[in-house]
Structures are given as C-alpha cells and as structure tokens.
C-alpha cells in the first residue's frame, strides 16, 4: 500500500512537472517575439518591450527562464495580463469559483442521472426500456452542447422565464448551463454504466454468489454494482476534466463568468500569460483529481495495490 501511494505520488509529481514544461514551452512556441505578442496594444512601445523581455528573462537560457517562471507560479504569480490590466492570478481567482461551481454541478448531474439511467437500462437489458434509454443516451451524446444551450435559453429563459439567462452564480442561473454542460456526459455515462454493470453481471463470481442462495437484490447490490463501481470511478475522474474543459463553450453561450470564457477571450486576445495560466491550472487540477481517484482505487479494488 505504501509502495502504491508512493508510486502514484511520484507519478503525479512527474506528470505535473511534464505538464508545466509543456505549458512553459507553449508560449515560446508562438512565432515571433513573445514580448510583442504579450503586449498587444502596447507593443509599439520599444521601451516596454525591452522591459518585458527582461522581466520574462527572455535574454536568459531556457532552464533559467523555466525556473524563474516556475518560482513565480509556485508563489501564485502568473504574470500580468496586459489585456485586462491586472495580474493573471487575480483574474483567475475572480473567475475560478464560477467555473468550479458549474463543473461540480455538471458532474453531479452527469454522474447521478447517467448512473440511474445506465443502471435502469442494465437491469432491463435487451427490453424495450433498454433500447429507448440507450437511444436517448446516444442522442444526448450527439447533440452539440452550444446548440442545445441556445434552445434551452429560448425555451426556459425567454419563452418560459423560469431560469436566468445570465445568472452569474445564483442557482437560477446555474441550472441551464449545468444541464447543457452535462447532457453529453449523461449520455455517455448512461451507456458506460450500463455496460459496466453488464460486464460485472457476467463475471463468474456472480454465479458463485447466486449459488450461495442469497437473493437477487443482494447479488445485484453486493456483487454486481460493487464491482461495476471501479470503472465508473475511473470515468468520474476523467469526466471532471472533460466537464472542466467543456465550460469553455457553455460559459460562452450563457455569458457566464469563468475560466473557460476567460480562456477563449485570452486566446482571441493573444493574452498568452492568461492562456498559459489557465491551461496549467486546469491540467494540474485534472491530474490531481485523477490522483485522488488513484488513491481511491484500492478501496474499490483491493487488487490494485498488488499490481
């Protein structure tokens, strides 16, 4: 167990390091002078460009540059957004809570509803209810979220003003974006949960359990569901990242604040320091979530530590 934890820990630290190097290199890959790119409006000012050059340490070897940048990042200093005339960290601090709220709401929906639908379909396997549920799931997976978002706004915020169009972080403003964000993953999860349960159902030990003389419900809960949880747990981890990056579109459609929209705007505005920070933070967060999932694994499947 200790060895497993240590191994996961080393893995995530290595991953975080790799991610940071990639993200760091990203900004150096941009054609032309990064300082000019960063300054945008003020790029005409040669003095400023020079100063930024020095600030970013562009005149130094890459390793030094990286270490300086990383030093800043670790202190929470991601640089200054010239487009927004404030520090990147304050931009992120201001936008992050809304995104986290949306992502978590989306996760609750996609895992909750997806699980119920999938379990329902698995129990009714190969019957009409199964086919219908899976048809709905497939459709949900296939509808573009931005289009759905528009239709939802038209229906539930304009025609029937039940929810806020631009809700900020109130719950009335959260419902539609969360549904839009989660719909695709609900569909995916329903299918995934169904096949996980079915896969668990056909395991041989399920027959052993039935041969003990316990009830069908007990078999389903203790031996089928319990064993199906492991793949589902993995999916939850992955999905967190999917939803987190999905906010890019949903926040744009619903004019919600958040780092997704911040990212899109930063890309359009060539505000590279902000892009860099958002990408880094989301990737690290995603890695962290998967790290936590890794830590939960042994609880769900005692074989894992043995691997």
């Amino acid at each position: 167990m200790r060895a497993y934890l240590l191994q996961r820990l080393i893995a995530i630290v290595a991953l975080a390091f790799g991610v940071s190097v990639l993200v760091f290199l990203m900004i150096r890959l941009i054609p032309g002078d990064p300082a000019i790119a960063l300054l945008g409006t003020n790029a005409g000012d040669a003095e400023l460009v020079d100063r930024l050059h020095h600030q970013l340490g562009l005149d130094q070897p890459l390793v030094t540059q990286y270490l300086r940048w990383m030093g800043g990042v670790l202190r929470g200093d991601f640089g200054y957004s010239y487009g927004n005339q404030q520090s990147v960290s304050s931009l992120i601090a201001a936008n992050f809570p809304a995104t986290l709220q949306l992502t978590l709401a989306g996760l609750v929906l996609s895992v909750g509803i997806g699980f119920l639908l999938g379990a329902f379909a698995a129990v009714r396997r190969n019957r009409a209810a199964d086919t219908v549920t899976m048809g709905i799931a497939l459709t949900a997976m296939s509808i573009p979220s931005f289009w759905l978002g528009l239709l939802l706004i038209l229906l539930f915020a304009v025609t029937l003003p039940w929810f806020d169009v631009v809700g900020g972080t109130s719950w009335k403003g959260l419902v539609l974006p969360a549904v839009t964000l989660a719909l695709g993953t609900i569909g995916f999860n329903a299918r995934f949960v169904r096949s996980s349960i079915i896969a668990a159902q056909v395991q041989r030990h399920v027959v052993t359990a039935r041969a003990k003389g316990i009830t069908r419900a007990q078999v389903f809960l203790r031996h089928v569901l319990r064993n199906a949880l492991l793949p589902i747990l993995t999916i939850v981890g992955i999905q967190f990242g999917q939803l987190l990056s999905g906010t890019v579109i949903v926040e744009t459609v619903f004019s919600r604040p958040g780092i997704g929209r911040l990212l899109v705007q930063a890309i359009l505005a060539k505000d590279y320091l902000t892009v860099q920070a958002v990408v880094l933070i989301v990737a690290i967060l995603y890695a962290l979530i998967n790290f936590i999932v890794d830590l939960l694994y042994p609880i769900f499947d005692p074989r894992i530590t043995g691997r």
Partner: protein
Amino acid sequence: MGMATGQAEAVTSRGGAAAPPALLTVENLQTFFRTSGGTVRAVDGVSFDLAAGASLGIVGESGSGKSVTSLSIMRLIDRPGFIAGGRILFKGRDLVELPERDVRRIRGGEISLVFQDPMAALNPVYTVGSQVVEAILAHRPIGRKQAMERAIELFRMVGIPAPEVRVNEYPHKLSGGMRQRVTIALALANEPDLLILDEPTTALDVTVQAQILDLVRDLQQRVDTAVLLITHDIGVVREVCEEVIVMYGGRVMERGSVAKLTDDPKHPYTVGLLGSMPQPGMKGRPLQAIPGAVPAPLAMPQGCPFQSRCPHMMEVCTAMPPLKDPGDGRLVACWLYEGGATP
C-alpha cells in the same frame, strides 16, 4: 461442529446394495439455449440418480453439457437458456417446479457447487472470509462474529494454514490451490447434502490437483455428503468416485462403476475416449483416436450424437438409443447392445 457426527452414516449409506432412496434423481433433463443461429440443445435428455452420501463422476469432452447439467440442478440457468423438460427430484421435490424462494434455500444450503476456475469464482473485492460468511448468513440466523468463527473453522477443515489470518486476505493474494480450498470451504459452509464439483482441478497443476483430490476424498469420508464430480479426466474420477457417467453431445452414453467402465468399456465413444488416452506401455504404438471432431452445437445430428464419428454407425443410429443394461449392472445407450441391433 456438526460434521463429525455424519461420519458413521456416511460409511453405511455408500454403495449399499439395498439401494436407499435416491437423494437426487435427474429424469430426462433437457436444457436448451436460444441463440441467433437456432436452439442449442446443450443437455438433451439426461437421466441419472445419486444416493445420499454416494459419489458419482461425470466425464465428457468440452461442450458435452456437463456444466449445464450442474447449473440446471442449481436452477442457475439464465436467459437465453431454459430448462425445456424433465424433472430434477431432490429429496423428493422437483427443483424444476419449485418457486425461486425455496430454490434459494436449497442453493448453497442443501446443494452447493464448486466451480472450475477458483480465481473467477471468488469476488475480487471482498475478503475470502467475508465471502464465506455471506454464504453462512444466507442460511443461518446467527451473528456476523459467529459466522466468521465458523468460516475460520471451515478454513481449518479444508487445510488452509493460519485460517485466522487467511480469512482477511483478498482472493488475489492466494495461490490457485488455496483459492480452490476456499471455494470448497464456501461450498461446505452449510453442510450440504449434495456437493457438486465442476472440474475442481482442471486449472491446477498436478501436484496441487493431488492435494485437492486428497482433500475431497478426505471430506467425503468425514462429512456425509453426496458428491457429483464433473471432469474431463477419467483419472480424476478414478481417484474419487465409485461410479461414472460418460456424456457426449448433451446425452449420457454410458454409466457404470469406474472399474468396469475403464477395464471394459462398452459404448463405442467410451472405447474411443479411453483409446485416445496414452497408457503406460503403449509407447511406439499409435493411439486409438476417435476420428473427426465433435459436431458444432447447432449441427448435432438427429439421434445418437456420436453417429458421425462412430466406427459402428448404423442406420438405426438416427434414433437415440435408450439407456439400457447390457446385462452386467451398467447402463449403455447404444443400439449395439440393444439385442439384435436391427432397426
């Protein structure tokens, strides 16, 4: 523990010429599977009986319907399979007709089953002890703690060293032989009257197989349990059983005492099966192999399933011969022994 008491009876009830009332009687059992290609008649009219405390082996090649027979007895056949006909009388009650609730009481209580692959048969996410406890609690109104004590007892009985520690292990930590001991402990949890072992040693090495067979033989003596041993290795049957059934294509071909069957097989299939197995001293001579291959489940011929490979194939073989005693206390299903052999 109540196991020791049964010992005396076990000796008497075995092989008694007085023919005690059978514990299990399978009559013309038919278990079919509906598949996209048609109906697979996996078990097609199997009949046999088994006395309390007795031991019977079932041998046959892959796909002959051995496992389906055992699952049918446990009423564990799932869609797309179904029991299409026949009766399974257990202590006088027909398991085919019994409501699910009552079947559940019998499953794991009065009849229990040990599966072939001990790794797949145990749930990887629970400790082995708790899986045994689950089986105990399903049939006995006792507390968890007591159940666990009993599980430890059972572990000790099946020869697992340090059972107090081992109950808390997960299946993957145990070797194949240990796992098989656990599944046997699981099966014995409620002192069943009938223990079905479906290829309990196939996945194991010879030396471990010997250990397990030793254990089964030993238990058979100590506990008054009837044993139905399924295997494709006639040597294994020889170790444990008095009587044996040979199955082919979902049907019983021959039944008799192990010695009689191996020394003087009657059914052409049994002859071929034994001829295919190298015996000491056969070196340098070709084996008496059966030509051809087992027909596909959906391509089983009408009548005797062995007709296409049989050296004595006759016209009458398109009808299934009945199981009859050719006159020496065994049963053979072949027209060759049906006097005269004319249609």
